[in-house]
């Protein structure tokens, strides 16, 4: 059983593009201060950043919880938003429902969810239309990108 070393939750504001990414930057600083392996840290912050951007772009609000154990780093992201009707389609590279505003921010090209999966050792997504989406991603501390 993995021993939990740190658990911290962050509130994400939907549609606040100015602050979008601040939480992921903070997570990067926290993990860097803990001397987490650079390759592992990089994977975690990419997942966090894509998840944070997805919540900002699509949802009203969300929570990102960072959980560090002696074996892995997990990100548990839950939002209150429109949900995803077809998860298999949403996981396909290039598929996107983004608005022009999102694309002007440099996001919404159908790479976010595939990027998150690619950088995780375990990745799970569940969604209920009209309610919201939950993503759980795990990166092992001994993994190398």
């Amino acid at each position, binding site marked *: 059983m993995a021993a939990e070393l740190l658990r911290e939750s962050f509130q994400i504001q939907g549609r606040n*593009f*100015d602050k*979008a*990414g601040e939480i*992921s*930057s903070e997570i*990067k600083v926290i993990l860097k201060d803990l001397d987490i392996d*650079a390759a592992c840290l*990089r994977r975690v*912050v*990419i997942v966090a*950043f*894509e998840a944070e*951007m997805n919540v900002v772009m699509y949802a009203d609000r969300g929570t990102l919880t960072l959980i560090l154990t002696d074996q892995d780093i997990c990100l548990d992201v839950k939002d209150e938003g429109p949900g995803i009707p077809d998860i298999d389609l949403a996981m396909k590279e290039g598929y996107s429902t983004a608005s022009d505003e999102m694309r*002007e*921010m*440099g*996001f919404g*090209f159908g*790479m*976010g969810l*595939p*990027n998150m999966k*690619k950088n995780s050792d375990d990745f799970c997504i569940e969604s209920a239309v009209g309610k919201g989406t939950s993503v759980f991603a795990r990166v092992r501390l001994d993994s190398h*990108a």
Partner: protein
Amino acid sequence: MKLVEIKDLLKCEVLAGEEDLSVDVSQVVASDGMSEILAFAKSKELMITGLTNIQSIRTADIAGVSAVLYCRGKRPDKKVIEFAKQKRIPVLVTEMVMFDICGILYNKGLKGVS
């Protein structure tokens, strides 16, 4: 190739990180899509983009690139430049378009990431 050589080659103006131009880069990641950068960058590359908002520097920081080069003479606002300085990411801007920049750097031996 050192950033200072790239600066001269592409006739760049340096907006941030003048003191860090001795950094060497051998690979380039070029896109206006931030998720593309995040998907392909492996860290320490030169990032070329036409996107000048705060997300470009956030992406550069998260992806761990060595420097950001804005093409087509597009300039970020002061807040973005200050953020880059805070993150110690050198920022350059050139009037050249992305296609020409990539061609010139490729001819000088720099490679893309895939």
